[in-house]
């Protein structure tokens, strides 16, 4: 008790007293002084000194507590050996790797589930949003039911439902279901064939990239030509042909390989092919389906925000329905849809932190394990918060810039 109290007096107490005195002085001044500007500055001084007082108090307590519990501080642990396995990783990792590398593995897993989730959520959400606006009564009801059912159940419950459904309702590995030959569903995960590595496949991959680049270029050229001559070329069709055709030709030129590595039950596990873990699938499925309900609502609201008069004006000018959709409805609807949808993307990324509940090794799970092994709670939680904060801020900065650039000017 004695060293603690002396420590208390030795380091921090005078600073707290000092800030306390500052705060008291600022408060008295703010109440007594009539000058508006000065008053405002004194209120600010009060706020700052109170925060500093609280901050130094907490910092002091933390240092004393950590010392008492013999917990190290600082980020040195990131260079130490982690000594735990991670079930799935995008980069080489073993128990001998460092904590720092483990965290990187976790972050990449977070990115993987978030990006794939965002893609599926967008496809589902936009589709359901459009369907909820058709004149078809049955389709409208189904779309509405989908949205209501998903939105009103906590996302964590969704994750558990998916996970439990996979692990409890699917058969064990050795009796895996096989709806299509070569594809197996079991409570230990999903197994499916992948192409054996071959030059043809590599060529096809590069062909795909080349196809996309060519499609973009072709659209550009067509647009410039239209500006010059007025001629309207079928850009959409050409783009699709390029994106499909170029990789196909590359694959054929590369020898048209057809060998697949097909999973087959050998002993206690599948060999060949590749697999999706139940943990990943539960998090991915639950997050994308849950988020799609919100995106569907955004899409619906965005399309409804384009007034009927806009479509009528387009028709009156003799524009075809396709041109009205591309040049009038979509540009306006997107301006309404995008900001809340960006928010949903961020929410999905933040919700991926719930992976820890089913054991998908995302950033939070790995940090949690690290925290339990090292006891360095402050550092581990700071890392989680900083990574998410940086991701969120970067995304919102990007989206704000984009939103400003497409904002409809009004007086």
């Amino acid at each position, binding site marked *: 008790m004695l060293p603690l109290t002396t420590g208390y007096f030795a380091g921090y107490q005078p600073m707290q007293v000092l800030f306390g005195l500052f705060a008291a002085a600022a408060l008295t001044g703010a109440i007594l002084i009539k000058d508006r500007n000065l008053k405002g500055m004194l209120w600010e001084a009060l706020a700052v000194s109170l925060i500093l007082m609280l901050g130094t108090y907490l910092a002091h307590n933390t240092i004393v507590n950590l010392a008492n519990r013999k917990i190290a501080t600082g980020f040195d642990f990131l260079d130490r050996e982690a000594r735990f396995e991670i079930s799935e990783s995008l980069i080489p990792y073993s128990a001998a790797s460092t904590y720092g590398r483990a965290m990187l593995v976790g972050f990449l897993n977070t990115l993987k589930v978030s990006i794939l989730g965002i893609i599926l959520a967008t496809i589902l959400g936009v589709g359901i949003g459009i369907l909820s606006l058709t004149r078809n009564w049955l389709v409208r009801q189904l779309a509405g039911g989908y949205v209501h059912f998903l939105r009103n159940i906590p996302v964590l419950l969704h994750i558990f*439902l998916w996970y439990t459904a996979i692990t409890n309702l699917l058969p064990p590995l050795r009796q895996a279901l096989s709806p299509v030959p070569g594809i197996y569903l079991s409570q230990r995960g999903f197994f499916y064939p992948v192409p054996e590595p071959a030059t043809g496949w590599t060529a096809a991959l590069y062909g795909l990239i080349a196809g996309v680049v060519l499609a973009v270029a072709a659209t550009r050229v067509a647009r410039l030509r239209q500006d010059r001559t007025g001629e309207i070329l079928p850009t959409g069709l050409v783009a699709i042909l390029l994106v499909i055709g170029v990789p196909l030709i590359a694959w054929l030129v590369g020898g048209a390989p057809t060998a697949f590595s097909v999973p087959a039950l050998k002993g206690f596990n599948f060999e060949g092919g590749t697999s999706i873990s139940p943990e990943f699938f539960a998090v991915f499925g639950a997050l994308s389906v849950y988020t799609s309900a919100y995106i569907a609502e955004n899409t619906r609201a965005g399309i409804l925000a384009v007034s009927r008069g806009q479509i009528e004006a387009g028709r009156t000018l003799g524009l075809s329905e396709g041109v009205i959709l591309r040049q009038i409805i979509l540009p306006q609807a997107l301006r309404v849809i995008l900001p809340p949808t960006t928010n949903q993307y961020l929410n999905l990324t933040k919700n991926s932190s719930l992976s820890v509940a089913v054991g998908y090794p995302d950033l939070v799970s790995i940090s949690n394990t690290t925290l339990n092994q090292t006891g360095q709670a402050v550092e581990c939680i700071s890392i989680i918060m900083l990574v998410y904060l940086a991701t969120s801020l970067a995304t919102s900065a990007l989206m704000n810039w984009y939103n400003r650039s497409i904002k409809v000017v009004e007086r």
Partner: protein
Amino acid sequence: MAIEMTGPATMAAPAGAPRDVIGWLRENLFSSPLNSVLTLISFGLIVLVVPPLVRWGILNAVWTGGLERCKAVQGTGACWIFIAEKYRLILFGLYPFKEQWRPLLMTVVLIALLAASMNRAFWRPWLGLAWLLGYLAMGILMWGGIFGLAFEDTDKWGGLPLTLILSVNAIAFSFPLAIALALGRRSDLPVIRMICTGFIELVRGVPLISVLFMASLMIPLFLPAGVDINKLLRAQAGIILFTGAYVAEVIRGGLQALPKGQIEAADSLGLGYWQKTGFVVLPQALSLVIPPMVNSFIATFKDTSLVIIIGLFDLFGSARLAANDPAWRPFYVEGLLFVALIYFVSCFSLARYSRYVERLARQGDQR
């Protein structure tokens, strides 16, 4: 196709066209080839999904009897006796079995107060008093220790009452914080504005789970040696801070929606900042934000389910507890569905209420 979707603006029905079943079907399901295809696909989906669900959930399900009957249908039928067997545990967690009337009564009081607060006619000063008395009564019921009630510490609290306590407290206590943050973010004083903006953006940028980890693992480090706050309170504090940042943004939305003329009018009357804020700005802004506030409450209500990760047994946590019994373990899905149903009914009715308030406000504007 997207263009005809702007709603049923033109309905073709010649004079005296019979609005019979066939007419309705043609108009709503088969008005065009595309429409017919959509209808058929929907039917296909329904046929694909509904019969297996009905078979599993109703026809093959076990409604009475014992565990053996459940074991027999495992995988092909639902075992609803799991719910019948464990509903007390799911609803009230580890609260002593004989004393469970106390959390039940507390839940009834809380729901009654919430229901009363939803009715505009009851928005009178006495409602505040009722809430104060209600809180006192609920505290006595849950903790006990007087009036001959046995003392029950917070580590025994669980189930639906815990979920309700966490979410209602979160909204109630985050409200003053949120008002301060929202006003601060719109303040003329740059330092105050920076502090408030920084706090709001920081909290909104990180996942709730990290805030809960902080509450459960870092708060003990922040406190002087020997001082300890129990886990429930720490989690509650974390949820309040988290909710505060989101509610602050909702309130800021209300402040921004306020017509400029209102503030100019208050300025022209010579009101000071606090008078202007207290008598003119806040009352109007707050009544504007009631519907989004209800939505925040729904979000918080769902979010409290995350406390399971730091080891509290809310509604969802206690369902998991129930499935820990090895004999019943295979029937966890049934328990989860039961919990999902409770969440769904609560959130769906709250969402309906929010839309009702919104409609009411719009009608008020038109008058």
